[in-house]
């Protein structure tokens, strides 16, 4: 896949866009860029910057775009995150009746961020059903559990077996008013999500005309995290390492296949090669190295290789501290990935991985939210001197994007310091 389509208006904007994108691609290709790129990843921090509530940010497409543009024009990052998709989710969540999240107006106050509810959305005795027929499991069990719009589909007819004329009588359940109502709700929700995506597409195009590329197109997920976070729940998954080991391993292998299909299709839709993959269960403290190498890494590596083979650039965000995992996660082709680290020491990551992947991160949230601008300046200088100027292909960012509470002067300090110490 090629770089995002360049559709800029002026030669100056095109040149700026190309230069910014080239910096990122130089990092990916392990070439030294002309300066250390700095990226903007902001979600509810936009509400702070724009002086509105989180709830307004979640429900007002135009406001997100307006604030997003102001932020991009003030800080001039090399890339910006898909802010509309990340923030203005309220109307879509409402219409689909999304259950695993609490968001402003739905369980949390107007000034709080949305938060995921860790629950068991798949029961321990449902592995066989999921393994035999993932589509059927999603339709009749998973989706109705996580979204009100899908609830009626728990009475869907079982489609395998509807061969030849058997199909005729087999479709009678579609007359069920619950199924019909569900399908209508799903279509209404889908129309809202289409609006959301159209706003994001519009924002991307507009930013292009101003010379600013997007940092990634779509997201993906590690198979282990998919099952742990969104199906079995944290504690269910941890018990499964002992109680359902063989079935879990089978499901992780199967999940690679459908995650890859989903991700490659979405990357084409967004016409962007970089795939953001926030990881959750890889950290040193969460499981033993043996468990990591048995349960977490093999299916994730397959996913990375599958994405790379499809011409995409995986960008996993290694949450928390993954220092003990560095040697293991080195096992990917050189010059194909961006590894974004949250709490792992970036200098250490550079030492182990600097010849294999580009790096991204990682100003600490505590520093950004409670520190002074001069402390932010010193932290950027540390990364510039000890990683970028020593040959590390570092894309500067906060540890997990800008914390919502970050004072604007600290963000200014971050960008100013990046230019001061690394171009």
């Amino acid at each position, binding site marked *: 896949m090629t770089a995002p389509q360049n559709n800029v208006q002026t030669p100056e904007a095109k040149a700026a866009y190309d230069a910014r994108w080239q910096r990122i691609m130089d990092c990916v290709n392990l070439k030294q860029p002309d300066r250390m790129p700095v990226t903007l990843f902001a979600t509810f921090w936009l509400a702070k910057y724009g002086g509105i509530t989180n709830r307004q940010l979640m429900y007002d497409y135009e406001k997100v775009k307006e604030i997003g543009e102001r932020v991009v024009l003030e800080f001039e990052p090399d890339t910006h995150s898909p802010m509309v998709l990340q923030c203005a989710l309220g109307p879509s969540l409402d219409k689909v009746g999304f259950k695993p999240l609490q968001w402003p107006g739905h369980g949390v*106050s107007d000034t709080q961020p949305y938060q995921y509810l860790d629950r068991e959305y798949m029961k321990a005795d449902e592995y066989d059903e999921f393994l035999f027929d993932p589509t059927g499991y999603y339709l009749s069990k998973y989706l109705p559990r996580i979204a009100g719009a899908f609830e009626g589909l728990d009475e869907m007819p079982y489609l395998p077996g509807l061969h030849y004329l058997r199909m005729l009588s087999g479709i009678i359940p579609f007359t069920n008013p619950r199924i019909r109502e569900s399908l209508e709700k799903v279509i209404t929700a889908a129309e809202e999500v289409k609006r959301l995506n159209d706003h994001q597409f519009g924002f991307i195009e507009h930013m292009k005309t101003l010379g600013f590329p997007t940092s990634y197109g779509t997201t993906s997920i590690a198979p282990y995290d998919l099952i742990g976070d969104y199906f079995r729940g944290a504690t269910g998954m941890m018990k499964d390492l002992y109680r359902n080991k063989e079935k879990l391993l089978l499901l992780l292998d199967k999940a690679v296949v459908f995650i890859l299909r989903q991700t490659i299709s979405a990357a084409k839709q967004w016409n962007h090669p970089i795939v953001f993959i926030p990881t959750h269960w890889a950290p040193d403290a969460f499981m033993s190295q043996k468990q990591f190498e048995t349960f977490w890494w093999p299916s994730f590596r397959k996913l990375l290789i599958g994405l790379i083979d499809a011409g995409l650039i995986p960008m996993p965000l290694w949450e928390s501290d993954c220092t003990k995992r560095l040697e293991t996660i080195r096992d990917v082709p050189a010059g194909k990935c961006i590894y974004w680290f949250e709490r792992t020491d970036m200098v250490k990551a550079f030492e182990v991985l600097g010849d294999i992947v580009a790096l991204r991160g990682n100003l600490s949230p505590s520093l950004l939210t409670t520190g002074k601008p001069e402390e932010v300046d010193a932290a950027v200088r540390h990364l510039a001197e000890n990683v970028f100027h020593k040959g590390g292909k570092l894309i500067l960012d906060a540890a997990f994007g800008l914390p919502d509470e970050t004072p604007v002067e600290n963000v200014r300090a971050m960008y100013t310091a990046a230019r001061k110490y690394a171009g």
Partner: protein
Amino acid sequence: MADMTEQEQNLVNWLADMNEDDAFALAKKMLLEEKVNPLRVLELCRNAMDIVGKRFEKGEYFLPELVLAGEMLENIGAIAKPLIIQAPGEAPKRLAKVLIGTVHGDLHDIGKNIVTFMLDINGFEVKDIGIDVPVKTFIDEIGAFQPDVVGLSGFLTLAFDSMKETIEAIKDAGMRDKLKIMIGGGQVDETVRNYTGADAFGTNAVDAVSLCKTWMGVAA
């Protein structure tokens, strides 16, 4: 463990080694068929949990083992506890009281639950007051429970301010000098500890146990 029978030793080992099926079957047999004193079975469970805790501290066990150990203990406890005829003075002595909760605005509880479990199996009396706990609730609960240690948990960056407010309120209520305060969560570090005014921070359950033991003058 020299004073254990072979059967008792098996129960401890199987629990400590995560051999859930054998351990549960044996505990059930001891309790329901052999009518072993349920307090003795629970004592054996505590011995096993001590081993689990030590293996966690040494980096041999991680969160999956703590979670499974907690569940095994709960399942055996569910059979044993109704069988207990409590005699005066038989209640196990607790080291100290710890009140724990996730601060207001934050709904995360996985880390807090694991800390609660680890403190409990290490001999502390723990009261978990849940998630998204308002400042006033902390104050009321501290007044009622009289803890030696308060644990404030939080995963989001918004928790920094919630922790700071909670600690300030504890101070304003005149309770600060009577207790130690520890904070924990994925984002906390020394900068956050300093910002919030807590006595210490921890990033895992072992830290929490060590802090409490140190504060209470128990060998950590």
